[in-house]
């Protein structure tokens, strides 16, 4: 700091009549206020400049990619870019009956153009999400009209090539998707769809997948969080009440799984829980169960819940421990001395003071749980899947990136909301790692 204060001015006794005197000045002759403001600004600038490189890096390599990925959830420019003349011509169509000849001619032109540029596949699969059968309609029609030049009526030719072109529902899908943005990915992510006349309805019972899965993910995450609390609380209590030396030894036992590779921990659970695994073998050897009726404990919900509770438990113990460490034991002793039983003293005096730790740990575990991917994918089987497994599926297998982005943005919205609560409650600068 470059502020220097001449001793006479710093004297508080001058303060009362300072109004009458000349303003305070720093060593270089500038008024003290200006000098202080400059020094503060300089310090602020230095702090900002130190943070800036990292901030910039994260904005470019992390935040921006995620948001630009999320825009795919509403983006729908396939019709606009691949069938441009159709997209333009269909704006005049009011949605009553079939569009007129100009629209059909425009479509024929676009299809021929697309066939030549070999880019019809994208628009075909995009429209296929909206109206099943459109893939073959588009590719088939394009193939059949390649050699047709200026027929009497494009409408008859196209309808002749594929009967779907006589269906107004097809045209309303094309018109809807030529707007450049779409809600249909979000609708699909919420198990809804547009029906033939363009209003939003729920998917038929057999095709509802995502809402149930989201509820299940939430429910399993709550269960995992609760189990972590149940197992973490006694351990944190023990650690906080033991003398420093033995506590830090036991703390190592909590931190070791925390440091161990996630895949290793998941593998160990496979080795333990599978039907020929360690636990089943012990149970059979002890005669608790028959050799034939070995328990199915992995590749289902049980596997996911056990493995994830194990993996996330340290994230519960650490915040609980740091809160419990700060509770003075004299409160409990005071309660006991005034006649409370051990249980009452715990319930009325100790437990309420640990609630902030429970909140911090529970939110952290819950946030990490709902976004978990690897463990459910490896040990979850069919029934232990999380919503993240469908994001991966649509990213890598079905290549329906819009839907993947829509599900991802719903998940991210929830995570961010919880993270804000966490920040309000604990402050991310209080996050501790062992």
């Amino acid at each position, binding site marked *: 700091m470059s502020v220097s204060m001449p001793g006479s001015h710093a004297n508080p006794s001058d303060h009362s009549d300072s109004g009458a005197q000349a303003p305070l000045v720093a060593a270089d002759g500038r008024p003290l206020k200006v000098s202080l403001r400059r020094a503060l600004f300089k310090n602020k600038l*230095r702090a*900002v400049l*130190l*943070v800036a490189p*990292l*901030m910039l*890096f*994260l904005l470019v*390599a*992390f935040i921006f*990619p995620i*948001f*630009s*990925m999320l825009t*795919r959830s509403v983006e729908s420019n396939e019709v606009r870019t691949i069938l441009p003349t159709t997209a333009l011509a269909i704006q005049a169509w009011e949605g009553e009956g079939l569009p007129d000849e100009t629209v059909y001619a425009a479509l024929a032109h676009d299809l021929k153009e697309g066939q030549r540029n070999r880019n019809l596949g994208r628009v075909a699969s995009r429209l296929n999400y909206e109206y099943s059968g459109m893939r073959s309609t588009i590719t088939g029609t394009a193939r059949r009209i390649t050699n047709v030049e200026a027929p009497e009526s494009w409408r008859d030719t196209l309808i002749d090539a594929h009967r779907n072109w006589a269906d107004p529902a097809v045209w309303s899908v094309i018109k809807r998707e030529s707007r450049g943005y779409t809600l249909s990915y979000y609708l699909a992510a919420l198990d809804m769809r547009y029906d033939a006349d363009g209003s939003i309805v729920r998917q038929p019972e057999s095709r509802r997948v995502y809402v149930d899965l989201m509820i299940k993910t939430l429910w399993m995450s709550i269960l995992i969080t609760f189990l972590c609390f149940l197992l973490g609380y*006694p*351990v944190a209590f*023990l650690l906080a009440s033991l003398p420093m030396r033995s506590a830090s030894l036991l703390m190592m*036992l909590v931190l*070791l*799984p925390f*440091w*161990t*590779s*996630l*895949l*290793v921990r*998941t*593998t*160990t659970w496979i*080795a*333990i829980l599978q039907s*020929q*695994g*360690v636990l089943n*073998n012990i149970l059979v050897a002890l005669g608790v169960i028959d050799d034939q009726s070995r328990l199915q404990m992995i590749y289902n919900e049980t596997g996911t819940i056990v493995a994830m509770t194990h993996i996330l*438990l340290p994230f519960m113990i650490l915040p609980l421990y740091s809160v419990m460490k700060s509770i003075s034991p004299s409160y409990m002793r005071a309660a*006991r001395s005034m006649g409370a039983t*051990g249980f009452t003293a715990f319930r009325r005096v100790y437990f309420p003071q640990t609630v902030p730790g429970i909140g911090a740990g529970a939110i952290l575990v819950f*946030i990490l749980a709902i*976004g978990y*991917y*690897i463990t459910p994918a*490896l040990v979850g089987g069919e029934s232990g899947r999380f919503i993240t497994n469908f*994001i991966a599926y649509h*990213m890598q297998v079905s290549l329906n990136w819009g839907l*993947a*982005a829509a599900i*991802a943005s719903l*998940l*991210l919205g929830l*995570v961010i909301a919880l*993270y804000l609560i966490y920040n309000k409650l604990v*402050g*991310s*600068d209080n*996050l*501790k*790692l*062992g």
Partner: protein
Amino acid sequence: MAVPAYATPFERAWYYIFRIICGLIFCFLIGPLFVIIPLSFNAEPYFSFTQKMLSLDPEGFSLRWYQDFFTSQAWLHSIKNSIIIAIASTILATILGTIAALGLSSRFMPYRSVVMAILISPMIVPVIISGAGMFFFFSDIGLAQTYLGVILAHTALGIPFVVITVTATLTGFDQSLVRAAASMGANPTITFFKVILPLVLPGVISGALFAFATSFDEVVVVLFISGPEQSTMPIQMWSGIRESISPTILAVATILVLLSVAMLMTVELLRRRSERMRGISPA
């Protein structure tokens, strides 16, 4: 925590029951890690203990899965990749993170909590979403399927750990030491290397170890943005677990458990050293 003299018999009983419960929870935490170590010496290609192993017959044990690991081209290539990527991203994350932590722990930093929340976000955002975002972005700028792409992605994921540990060491850092250095004529660079860095070094190293461990264990992002050439050890394990479960994975897992024990010990020693050092400087 000893049983107090005024405890009732019921409380005495509870005291021991509570310890037993805690013991069981510790078994749940640690036990699984130690189950796989003997299993990795299995002579048979199974994931479970054979009769011979249980009767401690030497024939039931072998090092074949370790041999498998150390002679397999695919595993060795992937471990080399993992080490290169982890070291490069750790260095980047540590430098960027430490510098940012210096700014963050200054009391003049504006919007401190918002900035902190953003810097921590790679730890909070589900990896699958980060991976998907990076997949499109890195493909667009031509970094998909390159080492640089994977390194940059892992740098982003490792940064929160460095920021958290270094800011934690910097709380209670005595700013008058910096002023003292300046008053004795040290310029900011010398002050940083001679005064600040030695004091925060334990935090920096444990942050670096966290970043290293994160990169060394990361599957999802690599799955999205790497090509076959950049296959890392976690990828190799991931596909091993998904497709053909061979006990080679248990051998790898055992090696990784030993590695994590080593890292934990280092961090623990550093933490104690840091506490000692901060005990000297008046906070």
